[in-house]
């Protein structure tokens, strides 16, 4: 309960600031309209008007809330205007990409920790891959794959995997190298094979590191999917909602889609966190 008061205070402050910004940013349009019609407007009329414009520069919180409500509950989940529909399209590609990226990250990490050659050859490329802006890479991947006849979920999942493999790779390399000299020496006294060392020591030691990176990875995966939905003029997915909103100046739609994406990211991170808790508890690593 102690947590509730500060959280609500910060939330209230943000909403208050947001409303202030709404009035400030949207009033210009109201004044322009009034001037064009040759009318005088009082400040209170301006305030009321800025809250309810159809295409505001910055939609008011209640407009976004209503847009979200309409998007989620206002229509059938299968409707093209439903945020649930678009959210699911994005989510499915995100999860596919996350699975791909996690698998790739773990495999590369295992290779890197067991082979000096891979350590030297793969790691620089992995780092370099993340320095290229995803916005530059995504359209090329989409276009190349489309020319090969691959469209739909897979190209988006690949972009998502491209972003999410890296934190998993870095975290797992650190995790697999976490056992200290003494623990490795102990296994040496048992004449344990590399395989036994991996399964019995390295892999369990890496679990806390893995979950920390999975949280970063799943959020990155969502970002990758949304970015991948932008360039191809996709009609489905939260990214497509953002894009069509910006085409038609539907700022409320953009903000609703943004909040839906943020909520989705939060849910994904929380779910990974819950799996982490359960796994580590089962392993006896949480007291």
């Amino acid at each position, binding site marked *: 309960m102690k947590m509730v008061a500060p959280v609500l205070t910060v939330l209230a402050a943000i909403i208050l600031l947001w409303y202030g910004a709404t009035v400030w940013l949207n009033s210009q349009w109201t004044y322009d309209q009034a001037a064009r019609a040759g009318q005088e407007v009082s400040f209170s009329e301006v305030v009321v008007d800025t809250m309810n414009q159809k295409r505001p520069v910055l939609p008011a919180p209640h407009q976004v809330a209503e847009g979200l409500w309409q998007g989620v509950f206002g229509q059938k989940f299968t409707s093209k205007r439903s945020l649930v529909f678009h959210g699911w399209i994005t989510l499915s590609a995100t999860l596919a990409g996350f699975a791909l990226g996690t698998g790739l990250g773990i495999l590369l990490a295992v290779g890197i920790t067991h082979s000096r050659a891979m350590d030297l050859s793969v790691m620089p490329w992995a780092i370099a891959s993340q320095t290229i802006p995803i916005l530059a890479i995504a359209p090329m991947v989409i276009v190349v794959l489309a020319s090969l006849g691959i469209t739909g979920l897979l190209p988006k999942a690949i972009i998502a995997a491209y972003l999410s493999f890296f934190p998993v790779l870095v975290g797992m390399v650190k995790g697999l190298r976490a056992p200290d000299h003494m623990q490795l020496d102990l*296994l040496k*006294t048992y004449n344990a094979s590399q395989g036994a060392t991996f399964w019995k020591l390295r892999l369990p030691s890496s679990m806390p590191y893995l979950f920390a990176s999975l949280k970063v990875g799943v959020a990155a995966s969502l970002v990758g999917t949304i970015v991948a939905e932008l360039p191809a003029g996709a009609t489905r997915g939260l990214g497509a909602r953002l894009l069509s909103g910006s085409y038609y100046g539907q700022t409320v739609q953009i903000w609703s889609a943004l909040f839906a994406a943020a909520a989705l990211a939060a849910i994904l991170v929380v779910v990974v966190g819950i799996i982490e808790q359960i796994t580590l508890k089962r392993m006896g690593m949480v007291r």
Partner: protein
Amino acid sequence: MTAAPVIKARGLNLTFQTNDGPVHALKDIDLDIEKGDFVSFIGPSGCGKTTFLRCIAALETPTGGELSVNGMSAEEARKARSYGYVFQAAGLYPWRTIAGNVKLPLEIMGYTKDEQAKRVEKVLSLVDLEGFGKKFPWQLSGGMQQRASIARALAFDAEILLMDEPFGALDEIVRDKLNEELLKLWSATNKTIGFVTHSIPEAVYLSTKIVVMSPRPGRIHEVIESTLPRGPRPLDIRDSEEFLQIAHRVREGLRAGHAYDE
């Protein structure tokens, strides 16, 4: 065959190459350890006592001389799983229960499930940890964790037990108790034990043979045969005249080996 020493070192040398030039960690070590001996290595840090133990375990490779363990080279002995090694820290896996930790070497060495369970039960009772098998390491005190790590080293049938300051991180009361238990365990199992310590009373109380080492270069200064009776010794033997005499000799040996310089 019975007369052959279990561990035999002749002219053993080990030089580490460091950025500051070579470091002579071990110089001309000659030593025989007979079957069933309890041998302590004592000396100041840098005298090579741990390094020598690690050579026996084939965790370090000597740069010269001869070393045989159980009639084999140290490396062959390691591959034959001839010894159990107890480190200064218990090093139990936090994700395994105490029983799971003791089972670790048995799993790696391919014992059957039945055999694993039987042995875990046996060694846990040997170190007085019956009923703690299902606990996780963090639920046990430091002394109990170290006992579990000894159980882990005893779980498979190694005739040699190598212990590197196993009680160094424990308080004196716990250490006394574990010393007493270790002696009982040694007489019950008839293992050959190599024991590194920097405590004179601990070395005298436990050992049949005390190897006094000195630093720079690491070498054996003196080997003292204990005249105390073999087998379990009562803790208050440490107040006896004989005990104090041996302890005095060890201290003299350390002083003569320049252990107290600097």
